[in-house]
């Protein structure tokens, strides 16, 4: 009996070592025309950890994958529409819309999603795209900040992300962002919670393996915000971190905490080179 169990364990390790990502034939092409980069050489800072980075799309089953291949089949587009409406609607005491200052989002916001989270010189901090949206609302529009974790801020981020769809992620990790990046890296490799799991235990050491029935991805954030079939609504990267940390049975940081901004920057840097997917579909 004991022998059999041991053999089983050895076999499992062998399978683990030989894990190979099966890339879908034809890749991720949206609406039959816009090709996403779903596989890229890992950034230099990942040397010794990963050689290739993969979009989370690669790890989903064919039905979930198909939902993202056509904008009409992607329910996340409902929120992109909502975001577009908010972009053009006057808000706050300024009675100005986003469009009044930033004009056509397809021009002014093109590429923006690829560089967030990003150091903000005036504020002296690294900001996520959602934080920047809220700073604009409170400082420039004279409006209340959107509540993190709710549809409105996720919809606005989705609309802005869509303007960078297909462009490779390219967050800066040096200069003034370096200390936040180091903090995020430390968090990524720190075991946490009653299960004593680090981000890396699942998403670096065991991607492409199964945790119960879940096919583990590399935990890349290039697809965020995502429409999760589980929640049937959008989730932000920080919102997903809350769930992930909770699953390690740890007390989580707040969704708008500086810790999660640092982690979001570090995780984004692990996906440098993968396409912004605008709004992706995941399980």
């Amino acid at each position: 009996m004991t022998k059999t169990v041991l053999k089983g364990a050895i076999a499992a390790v062998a399978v683990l070592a030989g894990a190979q990502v099966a890339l879908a034939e034809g890749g991720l092409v949206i609406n039959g025309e816009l090709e996403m980069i779903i596989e890229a050489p890992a950034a230099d800072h990942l040397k010794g950890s990963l050689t290739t980075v993969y979009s989370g799309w690669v790890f989903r089953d064919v039905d979930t994958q198909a939902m993202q291949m056509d904008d009409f089949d992607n329910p996340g587009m409902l929120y992109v529409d909502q975001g577009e409406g908010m972009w053009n609607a006057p808000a706050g005491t300024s009675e100005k819309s986003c469009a009044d200052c930033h004009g056509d989002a397809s021009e002014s916001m093109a590429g923006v999603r690829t560089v967030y989270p990003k150091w903000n010189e005036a504020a002296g901090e690294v900001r996520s795209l959602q934080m920047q949206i809220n700073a604009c609302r409170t400082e420039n529009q004279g409006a209340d900040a959107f509540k993190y974790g709710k549809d409105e801020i996720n919809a606005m981020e989705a609309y802005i992300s869509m303007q960078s769809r297909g462009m490779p992620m390219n967050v800066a990790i040096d200069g003034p962002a370096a200390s936040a990046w180091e903090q995020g890296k430390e968090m990524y490799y720190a075991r946490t919670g009653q299960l004593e799991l680090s981000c890396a235990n699942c998403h670096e050491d065991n991607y492409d393996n199964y945790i119960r029935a879940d096919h583990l991805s590399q935990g890349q954030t290039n697809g965020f915000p995502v429409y999760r079939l589980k929640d049937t609504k959008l989730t932000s990267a920080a919102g997903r971190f809350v769930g992930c940390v909770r699953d390690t049975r740890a007390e989580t940081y707040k969704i708008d905490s500086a810790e999660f901004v640092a982690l979001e920057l570090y995780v984004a840097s692990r996906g440098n080179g993968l396409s912004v997917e605008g709004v992706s579909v995941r399980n």
Partner: protein
Amino acid sequence: MKFTRRDTILIAAGATATAMLPMRAFAAGEDEIAAFTGGAAIGDSGVTLTAPEIAENGNTVPVEVNAPGAVSIMVLALGNPNPGVCTFNFGPLAGAQYGSTRIRLSKTQTVTAIAKMADGSFAQASSEVKVTIGGCGG
């Protein structure tokens, strides 16, 4: 812990009640089928049901039904708290007796489609869908 005779009877009664729970939903499904078919016999060819073998999440499961010559197709999920899912009724301008939608399945179960044909006959197709519980709060 020792069971007294009284405890044993109570446990047995509880087990019976638990065992009967799925039967209630099943019986409700029987009612819906009877209401749809009027108790007529149901054949097994003429309708196709396409559903994934394994659904990544039970909240959003794509299903597709197709029954050339049907006037309507009822979709049932007998393992759900309520067995009804939807009924497609085809009008004169339907290009095919085909419909596709996304459904909720509360657990692994058999999804059933029953087509009512223009001649008043019925056909049925079923497909088992495994609903996975993920490792991550699935």
